[in-house]
């Protein structure tokens, strides 16, 4: 009975979305206050009914209702409780419901935290998100209903959740990734609402910024969690593989990064308006494209969901409709978006423009590499090829290096116009220090020269020293340094923290790629193998029974220069329901290096095949991501975004003010 209720409430959610996507939009167009005022209650209704769907599906999992097909396919009576609950997003139907629920959550958040905005604008934003929601719920009802039953003969037990997913990472990675992904639909809705109402001013940019930053921060964390999870779960010691399904979030992240920078220019200087709108559309389109790539089953990937061509066609149709409609509207409204190009050839605007070009080019190149195999297969009549990590690295690494150099210059330069002499004065010593230490530090620590390590260190230090120098200069003319630190704007701190995080990722990624070492060996019990400065003593394995698996657990003593470091216990598991084997890595995590052991298999002689890794600085990749997200969150808390009490008046005032602002240089 309950699953039918879930199905019914899904249909209700669709109906409410459809109403939300029409009435308030028409109301905003015709100035009908009653119709406009329907937006918030309808949003709450959508959220309630989708929450009900999610709760019912969760309840079906918890109570082992295997008459529900989705539950039967993704759960098992022996599955531990935390995975029963999270198995909701363990397959296509449930994860799409979860995704749609996230959209409703963002809609609710917009309806609550939008008191400072004019009602007609909020109605437009919510209406557009309602249309998106209608597309998603329709998709579920038509092609992937999570409440479908297996009747009359229901399975006695479920097929179990994919063993690779039974892990802590699965509990946190999909929710954060989805939440970040879906968050960009808020920014998209703001952009479309602004296009519709013709209100493309700095107030619009100011309203959008906190949402863009929040979505970006969550997406950053989501991607980092995915990387961390792949690192310790998949067992090849990698933290990024350019897997076809890793790429769409990355494309989205790059476009999102471009967007938050472009929004900053639009807010502060009133330029790049059309570009910002276009980026918002592109970022949202990228998230739909990512969905298409994941769901269509066209690509070979660890993430591949069960494939069903009708789903792919539906999403592609929806993508075409959304992008086509948005671009059409964009074209009609283009005359509204005239910006004055009132900035010099060297100015913060130009550096941010370069930032945007690099980020968009990088995402286009990744998109090309991701889609190329599909296109090639279609064009060549079924011949297959694969585009591997080398392609992406050749493109991505140089582009990011240039981006970092420009980042250092852009974040100290001024709006409107900056002289070369000023940049030289600010950055000369920063550059010298970064290059010299970039040469010296890796050389001193490893006693060998590696050009990559020097570049990575120098680029990282370039950003770090640039930040320190800039803060120093900013507080230099204050009476007390502490008071100076306090006087800096919150959003300035947000920016610097995020840039610092970027530098940390850059150094971590560069150094771990260069200095990681690994060895694959066959070891009998009580044999030792050396790797780097470390010795690994394999003591043997013992049998172990888990709740829903059987395991062989190995014991290793790790020694460094003869001194005991710690014991490590990698495992080889076989899950009882599905009989799938799974490898559990053992990792000794550290700030400067990770030790990492993964078991292969036992040979008849009693020896085990295994791989051992030493990965210096790999933690910095995720640490940097956390810092970047933190920076964005700090920027969101800036009071500037909340002190916008007077509604329509403020919007007009802000516009005229932005024109005045354009006449005088503004810092940060």
């Amino acid at each position, binding site marked *: 009975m309950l699953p039918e209720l879930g199905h019914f409430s899904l249909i209700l959610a669709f109906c409410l979305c459809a109403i939300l996507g029409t009435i308030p939009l028409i109301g905003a167009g015709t100035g009908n206050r009653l119709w406009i005022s329907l937006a918030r209650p309808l949003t709450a209704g959508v959220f309630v009914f989708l929450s009900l769907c999610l709760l019912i599906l969760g309840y079906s999992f918890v109570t082992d209702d295997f008459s529900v097909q989705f539950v039967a396919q993704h759960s098992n009576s022996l599955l531990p409780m935390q995975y029963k609950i999270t198995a909701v997003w363990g397959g296509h139907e449930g994860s799409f419901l979860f995704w749609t629920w996230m959209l409703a959550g963002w809609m609710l958040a917009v309806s609550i935290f939008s008191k400072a905005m004019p009602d007609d604008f909020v109605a437009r934003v919510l209406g557009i998100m309602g249309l998106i929601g209608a597309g998603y719920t329709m998709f579920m009802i038509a092609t992937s209903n999570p409440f479908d039953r297996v009747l009359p003969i229901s399975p006695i037990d479920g097929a179990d959740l*994919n063993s*690779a997913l039974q892990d802590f990472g699965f509990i946190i990675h999909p929710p954060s990734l989805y939440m970040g992904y879906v968050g960009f639909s808020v920014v998209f809705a703001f952009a479309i609402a602004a296009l519709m109402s013709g209100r493309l001013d700095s107030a619009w940019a100011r309203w959008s910024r906190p949402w863009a930053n929040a979505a970006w921060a969550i997406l950053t964390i989501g991607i980092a969690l995915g990387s961390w999870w792949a690192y310790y779960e998949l067992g090849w010691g990698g933290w990024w593989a350019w897997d076809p399904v890793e790429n769409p979030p990355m494309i989205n992240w790059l476009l999102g990064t471009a967007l938050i920078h472009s929004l900053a220019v639009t807010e502060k200087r009133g330029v790049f308006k059309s570009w910002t709108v276009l980026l918002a559309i592109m970022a949202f389109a990228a998230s739909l494209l990512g969905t298409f790539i994941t769901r269509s089953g*066209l*690509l*070979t990937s*660890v993430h*591949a969901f*069960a494939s069903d061509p009708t789903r792919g066609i539906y999403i592609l149709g929806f993508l075409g409709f959304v992008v086509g409609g948005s671009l059409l509207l964009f074209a009609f409204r283009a005359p509204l978006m005239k910006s*004055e*190009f009132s*900035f010099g*050839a060297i100015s913060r605007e130009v550096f941010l*423009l*370069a930032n945007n*070009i*690099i980020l968009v*080019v990088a995402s*286009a*190149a990744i998109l*090309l*590499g991701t889609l*190329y195999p599909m296109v090639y297969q279609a064009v060549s009549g*079924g*011949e*297959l*090829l*694969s*585009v*591997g990590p*080398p*392609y992406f690295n*050749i*493109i991505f690494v*140089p*582009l990011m290096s240039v981006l970092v150099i420009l980042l250092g210059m852009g974040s100290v330069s001024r709006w409107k116009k900056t002289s070369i002499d000023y940049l030289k004065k600010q950055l000369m010593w920063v550059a010298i220090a970064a290059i010299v230490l970039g040469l010296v530090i890796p050389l001193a620590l490893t006693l060998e020269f590696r050009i990559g390590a020097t570049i990575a260190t120098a680029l990282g230090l370039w950003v770090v020293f640039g930040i320190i120098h800039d803060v120093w200069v900013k507080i230099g003319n204050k009476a007390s340094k502490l008071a100076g630190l306090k006087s800096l704007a919150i959003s300035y701190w947000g920016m610097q923290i995020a840039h610092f995080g970027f530098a940390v990722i850059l150094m971590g990624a560069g150094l771990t790629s260069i200095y990681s070492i690994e060895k*694959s*060996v*066959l070891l009998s019990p009580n044999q030792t193998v050396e790797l780097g400065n470390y010795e690994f003593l394999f003591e043997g394995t013992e049998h172990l029974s888990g709740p829903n698996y059987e395991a062989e657990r190995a014991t290793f003593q790790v020694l460094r220069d003869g001194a005991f470091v710690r014991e490590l216990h990698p495992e080889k598991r076989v899950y009882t329901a*599905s009989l*799938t*084997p*799974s*490898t559990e890595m053992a990792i000794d995590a550290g700030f400067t290096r990770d030790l990492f052991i*993964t078991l*292969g*298999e036992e*040979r*008849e*002689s009693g*020896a085990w*095949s*295994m*791989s051992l890794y030493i990965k210096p600085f790999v933690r910095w990749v995720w640490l940097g991501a956390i810092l970047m997200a933190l920076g964005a969150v700090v920027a969101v808390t800036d009071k500037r975004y909340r002190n916008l009490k007077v509604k329509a008046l403020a919007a007009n005032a802000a516009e005229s003010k932005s024109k005045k602002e354009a006449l005088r240089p503004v810092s940060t």
Partner: protein
Amino acid sequence: MKPHRRKKLTIIGFIATGLAVAIGLSLYALSNTIDLFFTPSQIAAGEVNNGQRIRIGGMVKEGSVVKSQESLHVEFITTDYSHDLQVRYDGILPDLFREGQGVVAEGMVNNGVFEASRVLAKHDENYMSVEVKAALDSAERARSMPVMATEGGQ
């Protein structure tokens, strides 16, 4: 020329340069890094040069896996049920590697034997990789069209 026009042009110039560089880089990178995919039948037909980096796919032949007891060395045969291909590999096989299941490997052909540098198997048992499926399908087609098959074999 009006100043704002000149600025617009400069910006368009920027973007065009960026795009040109990107396209150049991309094409250069693509031409050097794509791995073409071949089936055991294609390799038997001599379509691949020695030492060319490629991907292969097929089923692991039942009873063909031989594991060394002293080292990581593994040998097995992949098949698309028309032709077989001997594979040599020094490394750890993925969890889902099994006889009778699909496998994809990267590496190069050396005198008719495939030296694998990486062996991949799918995570989901019910899921057959696009590549393995293509290999089996094309072998199937070849078998059902005997004339074509002889042509392919020569």
